[in-house]
């Protein structure tokens, strides 16, 4: 049963031969870039604290050089906009972009529509690392939680990779099965540590559900190098990824070093996923719903699927986080709850549409 799911037979054999639809794709890129801009501007204005649009405009103008705007607002307003909302929505955007593009990469690599960035142990490794961080002495926690989460994610995938490798090749089915098994093992350890964690359980649960609650600038600057490097590397491999949709043997015959491309793409997707989850926790469903939505609308050509997923993922997670921080304001709910709440119905919709062979 599992194997039938893994070998998705719905992939059309002609998938690598995509008609060029330049005009609609240029529109799509321009449209999604402007959407991202509008989303950033709009969500900067929304929050549990009411800041009038005029005030927001003046605060932004005052930051520009050569424009003298007299400060008539409380300094707390500036703190809220520049030190709370802006870093938070930028991190949400970076994380959303990473998860979406990593999801698209995994789905392409595994040729399986159910693949998401957490398929081969990233989430379980990160969770175990983070929970270990919570149990360390108090003064280390601020640094140890993201660091251990990041290391745990990379280590888990490295272990899965080395288990699944057969000689010089990497059979994707073995990789998934090894990932699922190691993930279950790590999740068991995590659950045990959670039971033993006593009063730290609250902090752990909100990390596991994913939250941007206390994001500040240093976190944004920490993840930018990894995420931008990883995303660019993935974008540059869109063409080999397209060819590999045929089947690995044919791709090899067409002059693509399949094993090398697999290794690079797995590495890059794992790196950006690990960087995405290490500060904000495990945010589910973005990596599945965004690539599928993009595929539904603009088709499966990876040269566009990857950048469009990046843009759409960023906008989606910024919006989801805005819902998370305003829906029950002044209290906040974990953003993972919102993405799953929106993501699950979408996934059910996809299942119903399966006959249309969207992948």
């Amino acid at each position, binding site marked *: 049963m599992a194997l039938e799911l893994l070998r998705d037979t719905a992939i059309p054999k002609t998938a690598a031969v995509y008609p060029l639809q330049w005009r609609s794709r240029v529109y799509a890129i321009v449209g999604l870039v402007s959407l991202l801009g509008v989303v950033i501007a709009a969500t900067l204005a929304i*929050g549990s604290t009411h800041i009038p649009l005029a005030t927001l405009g003046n605060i932004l103008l005052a930051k520009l050089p050569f424009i003298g705007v007299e400060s008539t607002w409380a300094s707390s307003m500036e703190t809220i906009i520049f030190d709370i909302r802006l870093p938070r929505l930028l991190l949400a955007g970076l994380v959303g972009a990473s998860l979406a593009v990593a999801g698209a990469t995994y789905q392409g690599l595994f040729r399986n529509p159910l693949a998401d960035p957490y398929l081969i142990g990233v989430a379980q490794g990160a969770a175990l690392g983070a929970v270990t961080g919570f149990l360390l002495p*108090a003064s280390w926690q601020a640094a140890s939680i993201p660091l251990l989460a990041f290391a745990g994610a990379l280590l888990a995938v490295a272990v899965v990779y080395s288990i699944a490798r057969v000689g010089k090749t990497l059979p994707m089915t073995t990789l998934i099965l090894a990932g699922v098994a190691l993930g279950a093992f790590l999740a068991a350890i995590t659950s045990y540590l959670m039971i033993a964690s006593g*009063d730290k359980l609250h902090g752990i649960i909100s990390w596991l559900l994913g939250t941007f*609650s*206390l994001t500040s600038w240093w976190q944004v600057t920490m993840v930018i190098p990894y995420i931008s490097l990883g995303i660019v590397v993935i974008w540059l491999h869109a063409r080999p990824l397209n060819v590999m949709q045929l089947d690995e043997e044919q791709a090899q015959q067409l002059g693509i070093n399949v094993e090398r491309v697999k290794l690079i793409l797995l590495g890059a997707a794992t790196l950006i996923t690990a960087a995405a989850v290490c500060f904000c926790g495990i945010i589910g469903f973005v990596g599945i719903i965004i690539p599928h939505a993009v595929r539904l609308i603009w088709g499966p050509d990876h040269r566009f699927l990857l950048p469009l997923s990046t843009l759409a993922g960023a906008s989606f997670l910024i919006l989801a986080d805005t819902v998370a921080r305003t829906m029950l304001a002044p*209290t*906040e*709910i974990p953003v993972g709850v919102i993405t799953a709440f929106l993501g699950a119905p979408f996934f059910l919709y996809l299942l119903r549409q399966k006959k249309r062979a969207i992948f």
Partner: protein
Amino acid sequence: MNQYSRNCLLVLLSVALLLCLSCASPPPAGNVVDDLDRTINIDEIPQRIISLAPSNTEILFALGLGDRVVGVTEYCNFPEAAIAKPKVGGFSTVDIEKVVSLEPDLVLATQIHSKTAIPALEKLGITALALAPGSLDEVMNNITLVGKITGQDKQASQLVNSLGTRIEAIASRTQNLAPDQRPRVLYLTWHDPLITAGTETLVDDIISKAGGQNIAYDISGHKAIALETVIHRDPQLIIASIGMGTGEDLPWQYVKNEPRLKNTEALLNDRVYKIDGDLAHRAGPRIVDALEQMAQFIHPELFEEIN
């Protein structure tokens, strides 16, 4: 036997009878209503009591019932004698088998056990009663109720009287404060995310009795509060709880080191305080200690002489 000695004997007998009656234990409480609005029949005075919450344990020991307590939770760390008692599990995770093996005739639970441990124990024929106070007054009512059930009415009324006197000493000076004389207070139990105590919590009642106003007035229960709300509402003092049992002061350290809070009045005037979470969150007699500490934090000018 003459008339005189017969009268003497009669008097002696009646005195003996009276003494006998008064030294016998008082009658059992009969039907009582617990905090989940369930009516429970107490037809015998309980002799083997299990507590499923640290607050319940503290009430029992404060009423001199330490000898009758046969089981407590892993979190029951006060008074010292409670630590040595057999453990029946954590706070929400009750080891029913262990409870049954200790053969209790009363289990003092809380509202978190309403769907789990309480029905399980009642099916096994064990009397379980839930205490779930939401205010200081209700804590006092609970102490009276436990006293009534266990036949310690006198100890309970003494305890409630002395606690009531201490509460009144504070409330009498704060109840007539105008809103602008009540400093804005942020109470934190955790820092990532920021978890505060909103309305319908004991902490909220304590803050208002201590003469402050809780900035989480539109949040109910223990929930996350947005950092921007905190900055916008600009607390005049921040009180962070010290981790239950661990003695860690992470929320306090966070507040002290968070650059985005440095322009709040609390940080500008260096009014960031710590309170022992075991005092502030436990609905037992020591909640009054928490009230006195908070009153000193919030109105140092009014309450210099306490302690």
